[in-house]
């Protein structure tokens, strides 16, 4: 039952972390010089008392701590405010974008990790000398390129150049499937997803790959691998055992990857005009639409924190030697 105590502990930590991040964010947004009503001042639309009424309705004239408590209460009830720009509840604006982001990011991250692990395990197992220097240099390249530049290159070649893929967006408006391939369900979506996902995968797969490879190299030197062969196990069983033991560090790394994942996602969404939380956040910051920016950022942070929790818990199942806490 130590396990449950550990999970409980981590959950508690997660809540504390969440609270801290929320407060931090709230504080940051409150630090903005001027208040949100300035968006209306520019156009000179509203007379002063209407402005005051607006401020009051937004709770901007209440004392600071009151605003904070209101903020927390609103969050818990799912009230994320109203978008200054869209004049609609933030939740309405945000939700469809959320699914778009989860779709793209989820597919990309999973693919990057899986491909990275599989190739890394293979490279580590084979341990060819030639492959090492060339391979690690080759893998270094995607990591060093800005993710949006990879996207630009792909766009230039495959979208603008060859015309195989659309240049952006989620779907083709009024898409009429012609060929049998195009009539497959989800074809249009897949076509639009292909380049953004490819961009993310190229960028994010090098780290899991190198980590898995290094981990594998260390594991195959361990005594229990030799002992497994001494027991007469098939090579493929030994390899599976090696993989299972080597994957720990990859999982640890995933926590770091997760905190950079949204960064990559933002850039990809902006570049490919993908209607997701990332592009929404960037646009709303530029437009000074604080409720939306705040909510989008909050969602990204909460997902990051929850994923970290998930990874921590998963790790315990991967490696039974871990001491809880």
């Amino acid at each position: 039952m130590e396990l449950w105590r550990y999970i409980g502990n981590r959950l508690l930590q997660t809540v504390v972390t969440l609270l801290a991040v929320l407060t931090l964010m709230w504080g940051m947004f409150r630090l903005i010089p001027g208040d949100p009503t300035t968006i209306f001042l520019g156009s000179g639309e509203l007379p002063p008392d209407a402005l005051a009424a607006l401020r009051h309705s937004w709770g901007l004239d209440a004392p600071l701590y009151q605003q904070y408590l209101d903020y927390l209460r609103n969050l818990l009830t799912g009230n994320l405010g109203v978008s200054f720009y869209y004049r609609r509840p933030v939740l309405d604006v945000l939700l469809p974008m959320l699914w778009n982001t989860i779709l793209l990011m989820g597919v990309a991250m999973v693919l990057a990790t899986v491909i990275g692990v599989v190739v890394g395990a293979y490279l580590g197992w084979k341990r060819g000398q030639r492959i090492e220097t060339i391979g690690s240099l080759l893998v270094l390249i995607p990591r060093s390129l800005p993710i949006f530049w990879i996207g630009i290159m792909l766009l230039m070649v495959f979208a603008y150049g060859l015309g195989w893929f659309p240049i952006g967006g989620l779907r083709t408006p009024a898409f009429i499937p012609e060929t049998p391939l195009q009539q497959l369900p989800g074809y249009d979506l897949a076509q639009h997803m292909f380049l953004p996902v490819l961009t993310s995968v190229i960028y994010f797969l090098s780290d899991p790959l190198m980590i898995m490879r290094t981990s594998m190299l260390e594991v195959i030197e361990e005594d229990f691998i030799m002992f497994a062969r001494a027991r007469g196990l098939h090579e493929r069983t030994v390899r599976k055992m090696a993989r299972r033991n080597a994957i720990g560090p990859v999982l640890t790394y995933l926590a770091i990857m997760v905190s950079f994942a949204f960064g990559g996602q933002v850039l990809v969404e902006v570049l490919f005009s993908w209607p997701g939380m990332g592009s929404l956040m960037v646009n709303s910051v530029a437009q000074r639409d604080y409720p939306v920016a705040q909510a989008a950022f909050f969602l990204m942070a909460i997902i990051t924190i929850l994923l970290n929790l998930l990874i921590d818990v998963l790790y315990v199942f991967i490696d039974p030697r871990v001491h809880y806490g």
Partner: protein
Amino acid sequence: MADVMGALPRRRGWQTPLFIILRSRIGATGVLILVIFTAVALAAPLIAPYDPFQIHRLPDNSVAQLLPPSSQFWLGTTYYGRDVLSQLIFGTRVAMIVGILSAFFITAIGTNVGLFAGYFGGWIDSLLMRITDVVFGIPFLPFAVVLVALLRPSLSNIILTISCLLWRTTARVIRAQVLSLRERPFIKAARMAGASDLRVMYVHILPNVLPMSLLYVSLGIGWAVLAEASLSFLGFGDPSMLSWGEILYQAYLTGSFRSSWWVVVPPGICIALLVASAFMIGREAETIVNPRLRDP
């Protein structure tokens, strides 16, 4: 040079990391690239053929827009008629400044946090690690976007933002190292001899975690350059300075990347080279920390 109590060599550590890095081809290449970039950054006004902001005009007085590479403009011109090569050269300054300064701050903050947390343990450790957890929970680029937008996009704000967040990995790693070093006989001996905590931390432990810190300095350069490029690409870069990311941003905004590869490819390659050199050095620095990784 270990003393009787099993101390690790101290002063000698300074010289050896550099030579280990230089001895390998990868490390030497990384250092070479870094040196070249530094030289370019320093000598920018002397090397650049034109003023990077200068708008060039054709004989008929129209803007020399998106001209392909020629003998006059080695890497062609941008949408606004500016020389790409000059922009690239001056962009090196921004990259180096941001890279080096951010890396320095990241390492300074991270190493100290790790030192204090690992050495003192107890509530100090818990507090510092909780803070680190919070920072880890914050997705980097989105936060950077918000912070820079709030503060006003400028080079110092960008450096501040990057340093504010990216110290987290260094902190965790250094802390782990300090935890294991703390139990060594020579540390215990120093404490028994009456050395103050600060003295033990900075005079005895710090030199031994320095190789690890160096590793993160070089990784930090890589992260910082990429971060600045990303921020610029999103439009939150310092408008008064021309960074490589800015060049790409303008290429994207004006749609010139569709047709004109010379505006897009060179900046990307520059970023990649600089970042890769940082990671190459980092990789070799890692073998100092983990000698098993060294080539036989």
